[in-house]
Every structure is written in structure tokens, then in C-alpha cells.
């Protein structure tokens, strides 16, 4: 009985209380025929099947977000960029798209792994990420720009008119808002710390002399990532719960 209580306690950390109780009850019922070894292997299997997506989605999303942000910056202001001067009237808009686009890519990877591509919110964020990527890399091609604007209008229309679209857009934009706000918190904090360590421009030697800056930036980015993904999962699960309740009341 102690083994069952231990397994139940662990499963409660990764699923609801009722589900954990029912799963352990089922395993206990079958243990009479199959034995203790089967019980432990099955408990480990259930735990793995319930949790494997989260750590994979978290790590992949973190790297996708960081990589796409760096790639987008290189495409817009890097040395190989077909870049626009800083005083171009649309420069700020493009840099906004860089930030939102990398955030959307991080969320696409997370939602795709965790919830699958059939999920409406996943589909919506993938659409936004694709549009942002196309604009960042090909903003100077009029046909691409017009197609992306039309695509964005179609996604907005779906977000407003369809019930599922409204639910999905709440999830997408709440998580995007947290991601962007997070950036505006951690970036100035890191800059303040960098200036406190050594004012003025930094070279690679400075980075080697002050490894704490890298650690701070990494930690702040990780925290921002956690907040963004938590908002996504919480809102999505909450909205899925209200949809289930609606379906139940319709059946009754």
C-alpha cells in the first residue's frame, strides 16, 4: 500500500488528483494478477507518458526562440542584412515583428510538441510565426509583403469571427504579451548589470572576464521562457476545461 501511495503522490504532481487516484487504483487492481514488478514498470511507464512532452517542449522551444531571435536580428541589422537604415520609417515596425516573430516561433515549437499540430492555438501561432518569418526575410519584395498582409488579415478575421479562433487567439496573444514584456524586463536589467560591471562597449575578452553577465542573461531568459509557457499552458487548459463543461451541459 505504501508503494501505491508513493506512486499516487508522484502522479498528482503531473496530472489531476482524480486522474492520479484512478490510475493508481487501476494499477493496484491489476497488481494482484501481474505482481509488483509489473506494477512498478507500469507506474514508471505512465509517469513517462504523462511528462515526456513537457521537458522536451521546454528545451526545444527555448533554443528555437533564442536561435530565431539571433537569426532575425542578423537578417535585419546584421552584417549580411539587406537592411534598412535606423531612420527608415518602418524600422521600428520591422524590429517589433522580429521580437514577436521569435516569440511566436518559440511558442510554435512548444505547442507543437506538447499539444500537437491539430490544436487550434498551435495552428494559429504557427501561422503568425510563418508570416513574421516571411516578412523579416523578404520584406522588400512587394508580392510577399502583400501576401503576408492578406494572410494576417485572414488570421485576424478568423480570430474574431470563429469561436475556436477567439479561444485560440486569447492563448496566443496572452503568451506573446508575456514573452514581449519579459524581453523588456530582462534586456534593460542585463544592460544595467553590464554597465555596472564595465561601462562602454564590450569585447569578447570582457565576456570572458565577467562570466556572471552570461549567467544572468541566461537565467533571465529562462525565467521569461517559463512565464510565457506557463501562461500558454494554463490558459489553454482552462479554456479546454470550459469547453468540456459546455459540451457536458449541452449533452445534459
Amino acid at each position, binding site marked *: 500500500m505504501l508503494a501505491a501511495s508513493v506512486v499516487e503522490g508522484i502522479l498528482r504532481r503531473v496530472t489531476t488528483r482524480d486522474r492520479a487516484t484512478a490510475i493508481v487504483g487501476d494499477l493496484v487492481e*491489476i497488481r*494482484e494478477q501481474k505482481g509488483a514488478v509489473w506494477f512498478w514498470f*507500469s507506474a514508471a511507464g*505512465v509517469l*513517462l*507518458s*504523462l511528462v515526456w512532452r513537457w521537458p522536451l517542449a521546454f528545451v526545444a522551444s527555448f533554443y528555437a526562440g533564442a536561435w530565431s531571435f539571433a537569426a532575425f536580428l542578423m537578417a535585419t541589422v546584421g552584417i549580411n542584412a539587406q537592411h534598412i537604415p535606423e531612420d527608415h520609417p518602418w524600422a521600428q515596425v520591422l524590429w517589433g515583428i522580429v521580437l514577436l516573430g521569435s516569440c511566436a516561433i518559440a511558442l510554435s515549437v512548444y505547442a507543437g510538441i506538447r499539444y500537437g499540430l491539430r490544436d487550434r492555438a498551435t495552428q494559429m501561432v504557427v501561422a503568425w510565426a510563418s508570416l513574421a518569418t516571411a516578412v523579416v526575410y523578404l520584406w522588400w519584395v512587394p508580392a510577399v509583403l502583400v501576401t503576408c498582409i492578406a494572410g494576417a488579415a485572414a488570421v485576424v478575421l478568423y480570430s474574431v469571427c470563429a469561436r475556436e479562433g477567439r479561444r485560440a487567439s486569447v492563448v496566443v496573444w496572452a503568451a506573446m504579451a508575456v514573452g514581449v514584456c519579459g524581453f523588456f524586463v530582462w534586456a534593460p536589467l542585463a544592460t544595467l548589470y553590464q554597465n555596472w560591471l564595465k561601462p562602454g562597449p564590450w569585447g569578447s575578452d570582457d565576456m570572458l572576464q565577467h562570466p556572471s553577465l552570461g549567467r544572468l542573461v541566461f537565467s533571465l531568459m529562462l525565467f521569461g521562457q517559463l512565464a510565457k509557457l506557463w501562461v500558454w499552458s494554463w490558459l489553454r487548459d482552462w479554456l479546454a476545461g470550459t469547453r*468540456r463543461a459546455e459540451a*457536458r451541459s449541452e*449533452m445534459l
Partner: protein
Amino acid sequence: MGRIASLGEFEQIVLLAILRLDTDAYGVSIRSEITARTGRAPSPGALYTTLDRMEEKGMVRSWMGEATPQRGGRAKRNFAVTKAGRSALVHAQRAYQSLLEGLNLLGGAHAGSIGG
């Protein structure tokens, strides 16, 4: 009415097992029914994640049932197929039937050649 969701093979098996069990569908009985009818014993992890996913998609609904001593006093989680689940199952089975038409897989002239 919305678009009918597509179902994977294991999802169809689980839905059929729940329908067969009627009011007695819970984790252990669903697993036993699948094993008895298909000869494949699904792992508990695969079964629970499939049930959770289908509940999220509105294909099944669940509610907590009674606790029994052989379960260590823990309640069962009972399952039933919803209208949406039944529609999706019928749709998937019709597609299978349509593909099977004229093949005569279960016997007849083509059975030998298909079976090799």
C-alpha cells in the same frame, strides 16, 4: 455542426471497447476488453494518454465512480463515448468499409492473392 474529427487506429479501438463495455468502462476493463478482442495488451501509459486526449477532444467523457477494496479504496474513473465520439467512429468505420468494398479480404477469390 462542426467538422468531424479524424481518429487514429488505437483511438478507434478504445472507443469501440468503451461502447462494448457500456456502463462498466474504466481503465482495467477497457484494457482487458482490448486484450481479449485484439490480442494486444496496450500499455497503461498509452491507454491513459489516449483517454485523456480523447476527453480533451470531446470524444469521451469521464466521471469518478465507486471505490472498491481491491483497488486500495481508490475510486474508478468511468468513461462513456459522447455524441461527437460516436460520430467520429461511424465516420472512420464508413471509410474503412468503403475501402474494403470489393476486396473480399475475409475469404473468396482475392483472399489468397492478398494473403500471399
